């Protein structure tokens, strides 16, 4: 119920943003960021409610993961208004809101059963909580970078392209260390404690590594190609597509140690 209200708020925010996108005045509307904030807080309450019910941090299923992703993305959409480079930009919050709505729409689909289930022994670990939460928070920044990279690619105005490049780079530069710590380091520590092996080329591990390699390539490529190359934002777009495949595709298509995720 709480998630449904949050979904409604994000949809309303999306409608308001669409209206403002077609208006000539510059700047973002004053309502949609607050709707995003309200949706984020509601989703946070839902995560806390579920966590109390299972007496563990509710981050062990597909539904909870999607709620978590949408929650932090909604909170980041609100925070974007305080970012120097993204302030006043109407398209990036709009794109990010679409992604948050997609996450919540998927959460309400049969692919993500919403039953509250306490975790099996392998998932009862503080390292798992760090692994999953850091990975998703990193991916939330990658989502903003993804929207910005698309705008960077399609924009014909050189000044706008540079501005989008800066937003893209900032998003990835914040998301990358969080993702590295969460997906690779904390994940490996958890795997060692749970299974006695810190790396096993499990499909999820392999795809998380591919995501990391792609963003690492972006950060290095940007050093040598600067902001004029179209390949630079293309890597960010590819990186986010791979990150989403790692999250959804691997769960449904490839079996491995993470098949309960």
């Amino acid at each position: 119920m709480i998630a449904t209200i949050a979904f409604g708020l994000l949809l309303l925010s999306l409608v308001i943003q669409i209206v403002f996108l077609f208006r000539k005045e510059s700047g973002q509307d004053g309502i949609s960021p607050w709707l995003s904030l309200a949706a984020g807080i509601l989703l946070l309450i839902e995560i806390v409610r579920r966590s109390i019910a299972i007496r563990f941090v509710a981050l062990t299923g597909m539904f909870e993961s999607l709620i978590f992703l949408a929650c932090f993305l909604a909170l980041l959409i609100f925070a974007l208004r305080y970012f120097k480079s993204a302030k006043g930009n109407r398209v990036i919050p709009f794109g990010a809101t679409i992604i948050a709505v997609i996450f919540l729409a998927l959460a309400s689909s049969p692919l993500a059963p919403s039953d509250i289930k306490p975790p099996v022994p392998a998932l009862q670990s503080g390292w798992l909580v760090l692994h999953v939460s850091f990975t998703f928070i990193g991916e939330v920044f990658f989502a903003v970078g993804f929207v910005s990279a698309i705008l960077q690619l399609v924009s014909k105005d050189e000044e706008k392209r540079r501005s989008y490049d800066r937003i893209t780079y900032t998003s990835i530069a914040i998301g990358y260390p969080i993702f590295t710590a969460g997906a690779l380091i904390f994940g490996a520590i958890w795997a060692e404690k749970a299974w006695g092996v810190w790396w096993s080329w499990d499909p999820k591990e392999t795809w998380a590594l591919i995501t990391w390699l792609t963003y690492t390539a972006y950060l290095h490529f940007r050093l040598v190609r600067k902001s004029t190359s179209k390949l630079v934002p293309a890597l960010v777009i590819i990186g986010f597509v791979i990150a989403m495949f790692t999250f959804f595709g691997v769960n449904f298509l490839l079996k491995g140690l993470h098949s309960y995720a």
Partner: protein
Amino acid sequence: MKAFFDKLYNALRSVKLAVVLLVLLALFAIAGGIIPQGKAASYYIEHFSGAGSRIILALALDHVFSSFLFLLVSAIFAINLTVCTFHRLTNEFFKPREKRRHGPDFLHIGLIILLFGGILTSRSRTETFINLRKGDSVRLPGGAKVVLVDLKYEQYPDGRPKSWESTVAIDKNPPPEVPAPVLAHEEESGDTLGTTGFADPTLNNSLSSAKASSSASAVSSAAPAAPAISTDTEAGHGLPSSPAPSTPIAELPQYRIRVNTPLRLKGYSIYQQNWHTEKQVVLRDAMGMQFFLEPGMRETTKDGFVLFMALDTSQGTGGAAVANVAAAPAAAAVQSAIFLLEQNGARTVVKAAPGEKINSFTFSGYIDQPVSGLAVVSDKGYPFVAAGFILVILGVFITYIRKLKGILA
């Protein structure tokens, strides 16, 4: 000559080379993530088109992560990273202290140590799986003896596992193992080659009793060079190793092993991998004494022995299952078991249902014995890997945290 080495040095430390190698590594990983790994050649010929299967097999994409090409690219990447780190570090040291930025250095050195740890892990890691019932013991290569004192299994109301927990006693200086005597005629020795008469098998927890500790089951090794881990019974043959009397369990230090909470011993870690039940047949003799046999174990008689071979699977009930201990025996009560009987040198295979006579015994039914699945791991690379993790985390945060300063309005 100097010009050549300068060119080589510059090429090896180049960021462009790093980008190319990162993309190549990502492409290899994508191939390894999409193409099923480690299957027989016939699998790829069957599931991929003619050209596709030929490419997979020619480029060793059926085992990407151990293929020559992948290892070659990884090696060049390691060289690139090392040269780049050296170059960067020396440059940073020539800068004034306040202008130095060591975040990328931490990150790169961490990755180098991580790669070294990874190589060490792949070369030296050993993993051995053991199944222990309560009272069973196992001797680690370092000499320490591990006795399973207790095991607990909890499940949620919906049947999913909630926790697996083993309590083990560690005897760090057990007496040396006494080789089992060669028994020319097992019947004459009067010893039994199976688990022997205990009114309650769950009380079977004394290290000092050869009989009590003679039921450790199959040991399988995942690593080619895994050191030998000996259990008190050679599974399938039921030959006890007759350990000499040692410290009583109550006086040994006891530890709990749970999933996500391994036991760290000197050079080894023991992980709780699973929990399951294993069926044992219960035989009763004329005196009312009970004998518990797992598959492959036998009980001697005056003129031969009775060996429990297997459950009769043709009736549809499996032999071992992850199950609720309390609920399982009733479900299995009607299933037949297959025995090998030896009487005065003549051997016959018989199928018997609970309640039937088998030689001098009565087959009184089954008991589900809980079994703790443990993995004993030795990984000399992990300390390096852990050190690499710390440096990588430090490196990425020091490098990119500065970005936060410039983004807020």
